[in-house]
């Protein structure tokens, strides 16, 4: 493989980086500092920044303030990730695997042995060929699901997909963990996925919205990190929301940062009961004749098929606010007042994604869309609904200009078999079994080889103990990682990958605004024996005879230049790649017209000539297609289904009286940054915090700052108690993403010493429709502990020869 990265860097990053001067040092010292310190532009999911490098080490990180309006502390944790002891330093192989014994039960329990790159690569290639021989390419499972490892063009999951596709394919993932339930349903309901769609512009919200209902949406927290490189301009817009006097209503078991910032009225709903509340509000609006009949008739289809259910004609249950009061624990009067407020003011409903990560999550967005239809403001400025205000600066206006994409995976070989995200354990445990997905039946093949790059399944997959059991049944597990994540520790072969700070890449920001291109320049040399993901897959491809197809004989620079050449910056602004690379970023203007964008406005203005891409061109309150699937837990119109695991389950609550929600982390993206100093900001005695109310703390006899055991029938974890008035009684919150750390590996279900919440969450699917994750339908109990051992989550395993 040709690789001219070093030459490229010499001319590029180091050769042209601006020099930094510390304002606090004396002139003489500053002079030396200036001589020795270079400031290198880079970008991340947390924002664009400059790495200050002195003698090959990162001495500081500062944000690119012309691109990042409101930087977060998270970027400053990135340097720590490069030098942490949790780095994978050398290629390693699990001891008995290297000895030719394929005893999967020892995974995660025995030491590794340092080997040469050639040995590790040869072993991985042999394992792939063996699996192909045994079961064809369906025996290969590409578990590299996550696209969140970094915002660059060389995404590890894409590089893995490209590799597998070129050797004939592998079993992959359909749908996703984030929006696995709503994502596949919304296109049929409203002709668009909605969960990733550009939102009504902030300017229109500020000018027109009188009431904003934050139905679970936590704008302040989740917009801190982005799929691309965030600019955090949305926080400036939120200041204008405040000034505009928009009345904020928060429906959430947690009084979130967003609720606090906006001083929102808090409706402390019981988790998992939101659809019942929506039904009740619709029932009230119908019976009080306050709903927008004209909108329903003109812009929706199937209200007449939904209405008998809403009124209890089909199931004997009239979905009144009194009925919902018992389910939601929200007073009937409150629901009616809210419905009145919404229907008599310009109201925007900001939905979220967490609600649909629960049993029957398919119903949530559909019910919100139906409720918004009855309110009748869909397509009006500042009204209607949005499911992405909390993501990628939702509401940011779009430049309309092209930034840069990434390397592609290409066509998927001959396998063409994808399983719904969150069915990972089922896939391995249940060869020959079937799973339903959007009206189809998928048969699980027998997989024996699994590869994970750039993500940690023992991070995002619910029911960790179930997953670990499954992983121990495989013939071979290969992991490409910069760090000793819990998944890497369960592997047979681990390849040390570079962090983005050790290589060159290119990124853009943001998904909706599309107004920046960033150079992600190499900042420091690769640590130890780590190699870029691209190079590792190229070396593997060489062993499978596909190297040329994989690289197309292109260097890293060739790829980056090629991607940049398609951008508006190159094509229309005539900014050369070299000029962009020297400067570190390109900025586009946002046209004023884009600030007038109102979602669904065209449909509202002319539904005949601008129909929705649905069965009838209208909002489908009823869908014949959905009804034709004949599922017993997903029908032709939105419905309230009682979950199996929730506070309404009186029997289960006797054993596990707390509903556990696992929201996005405040100081991480999923598992990322858990091995950095920034965690000290919030961890309790080195464990993930569990937030509970003062009443629940009293009930369980635990106090603030105490480490406790949180458990249910799926497992147990240690977590540090945070007693707070910002969570309702009966509910506990543990943010997802702490690194799993089993205390006693000899046990079948060892307690996690670190607080990985997915040890407790359920892998029960949402419904037959999407088989998505229902992690937010989880009950737990708390008990005090006697003895606590050190949390070794961030320590490398025992390695022979290293």
């Amino acid at each position, binding site marked *: 493989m040709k690789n001219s990265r070093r030459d490229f860097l010499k001319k590029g990053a180091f050769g042209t980086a601006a020099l930094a001067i510390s304002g606090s040092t004396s002139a003489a010292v500053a002079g030396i500092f200036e001589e020795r310190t270079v400031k290198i532009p880079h970008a991340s999911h947390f924002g664009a920044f400059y790495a200050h490098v002195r003698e090959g080490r990162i001495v500081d990180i500062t944000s690119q303030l012309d691109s990042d309006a409101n930087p977060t502390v998270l970027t400053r944790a990135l340097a720590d990730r490069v030098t942490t002891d949790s780095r994978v330093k050398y290629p390693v192989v699990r001891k008995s695997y290297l000895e030719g014994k394929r005893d999967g039960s020892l995974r995660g329990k025995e030491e590794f042995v340092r080997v040469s790159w050639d040995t590790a690569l040869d072993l991985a290639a042999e394992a792939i060929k063996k699996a192909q021989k045994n079961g064809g390419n369906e025996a290969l499972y590409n578990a590299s699901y996550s696209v969140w490892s970094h915002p660059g063009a060389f995404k590890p999951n*894409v590089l893995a997909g*490209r590799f597998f596709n070129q050797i004939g394919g592998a079993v992959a993932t359909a749908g996703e963990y984030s929006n696995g339930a709503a994502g596949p349903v919304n*296109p049929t309901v409203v002709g*668009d996925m909605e969960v990733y769609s550009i939102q009504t512009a902030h300017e229109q919200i500020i000018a027109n919205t009188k009431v904003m209902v934050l139905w679970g949406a936590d704008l302040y927290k989740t917009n801190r990190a982005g799929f691309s490189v965030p600019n955090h301009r949305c926080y400036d817009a939120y200041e204008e929301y405040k000034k505009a006097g928009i009345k904020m209503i928060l429906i959430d078991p947690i009084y979130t940062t967003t609720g606090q910032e906006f001083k929102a009225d808090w409706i402390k709903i019981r988790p998992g009961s939101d659809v019942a509340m929506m039904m009740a509000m619709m029932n009230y609006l119908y019976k009080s004749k306050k709903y927008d009949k004209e909108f329903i008739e003109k812009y929706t289809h199937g209200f007449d098929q939904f209405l008998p259910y809403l009124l209890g004609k089909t199931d004997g249950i009239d979905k009144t606010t009194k009925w919902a009061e018992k389910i939601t624990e929200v007073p009937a009067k409150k629901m009616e007042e809210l419905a009145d407020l919404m229907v008599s003011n310009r109201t925007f409903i900001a939905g979220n994604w967490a609600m649909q990560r629960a049993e029957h999550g398919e119903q949530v967005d559909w019910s919100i869309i139906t409720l918004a239809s009855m309110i009748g403001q869909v397509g009006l400025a500042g009204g209607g609904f949005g499911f992405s205000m909390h993501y990628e600066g939702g509401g940011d206006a779009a430049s309309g200009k*092209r930034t840069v994409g990434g390397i*592609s*995976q290409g066509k998927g070989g001959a396998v063409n078999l994808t399983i719904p995200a969150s069915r990972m354990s089922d896939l391995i445990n249940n060869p020959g079994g079937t799973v339903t997905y959007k009206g189809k039946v998928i048969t699980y093949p027998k997989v024996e080889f699994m590869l994970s790059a750039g993500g940690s399944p023992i991070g995002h997959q619910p029911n960790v103990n179930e997953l670990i059991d499954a992983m121990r049944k495989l013939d071979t597990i290969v992991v490409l990682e910069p760090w000793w994540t819990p998944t890497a520790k369960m592997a047979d072969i681990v390849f040390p990958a570079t962090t983005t700070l050790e290589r060159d890449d290119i990124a853009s920001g943001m*998904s909706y605004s599309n107004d920046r291109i960033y150079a992600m320049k190499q900042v420091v040399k690769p640590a130890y024996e780590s190699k870029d993901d691209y190079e590792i897959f190229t070396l593997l491809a060489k062993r499978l005879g596909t190297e040329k197809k994989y690289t197309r004989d292109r260097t890293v620079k060739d790829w980056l230049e090629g991607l940049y050449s398609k951008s508006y910056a190159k094509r229309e602004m005539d900014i050369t790649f070299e000029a962009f690379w020297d400067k570190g970023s390109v900025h586009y203007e946002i046209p004023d017209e884009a600030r007038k964008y109102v979602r669904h406005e065209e449909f509202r203005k002319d539904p005949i000539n601008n129909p929705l891409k649905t069965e009838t061109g209208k909002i489908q309150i009823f869908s014949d297609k959905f009804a034709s699937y004949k599922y017993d837990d997903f029908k032709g119109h939105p419905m309230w289904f009682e979950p199996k695991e929730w506070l309404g389950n009186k029997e289960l609550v006797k054993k596990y009286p707390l509903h556990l929600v696992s929201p996005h982390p405040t100081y991480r993206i999923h598992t990322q940054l858990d091995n950095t100093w920034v965690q000290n900001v919030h961890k309790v005695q080195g464990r993930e915090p569990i937030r509970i109310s003062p009443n629940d703390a009293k009930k369980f006899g635990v106090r603030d700052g105490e480490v406790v055991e949180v458990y249910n029938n799926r497992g147990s974890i240690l977590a540090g108690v945070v007693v707070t008035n910002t969570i309702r009684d009966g509910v506990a919150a543990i943010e997802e993403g702490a690194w799993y750390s089993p205390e006693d590996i000899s046990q079948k279900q060892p307690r996690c010493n670190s607080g990985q919440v997915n040890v407790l969450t359920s892998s029960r699917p949402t419904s037959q429709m999407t088989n998505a994750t229902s992690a937010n339908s989880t009950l737990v109990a708390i008990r005090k502990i006697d003895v606590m051992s050190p949390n070794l989550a961030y320590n490398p395993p025992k390695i022979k020869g290293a």
Partner: protein
Amino acid sequence: MKTIFKKLLITLIVLGTFSQASQNSMFVFQTTDVTIDNNKATIYIGTAVTVVKAIDDKNVLVEFSGISFDDKFYTNKDKSLLMTSNDKKSFGKDGEEKKLQAIIEKGYLTKDAEEVWEEHEEFYYEMCTQCHASHLPKEHTMLEWDAILGTMKGFAQLYDDEADYLARYLKANANNGFNTDKK
């Protein structure tokens, strides 16, 4: 016995007809001009047709079914895929289901659907697998592709003409598109 023989004969005739129809099934290789009812019209890439007969050494008469909307002719009432258009003359009443016959140069026809979409396919997998794994066109209906593409074209940063280009490929190869029996 007589009844069994009769049923067998009918089956053979039906199979024979189907086989012949299948043999004559072709796809339009690229968008080109055709003659319909003595008028010049445009037939669009991927349109599935049945060859009725040869007109001369160069041209053949083809037939295809669809729904007319003024001077445009679509696969279905959703107007998911345009098959042919004619600036001068209406094809029939709006929403009317009918068959059209067109004279087309036979060089524009192929039996191989994959050949038709070779360039589109490459562009699709190039643009739409940069974040996630690929989805086969046949995984969705034409309508579903319209809806999904509506969301995703922003992430893929497709210009309008590129989005249209991809939409045609995806819908033509959707599970209710032109190419339903070759995927």
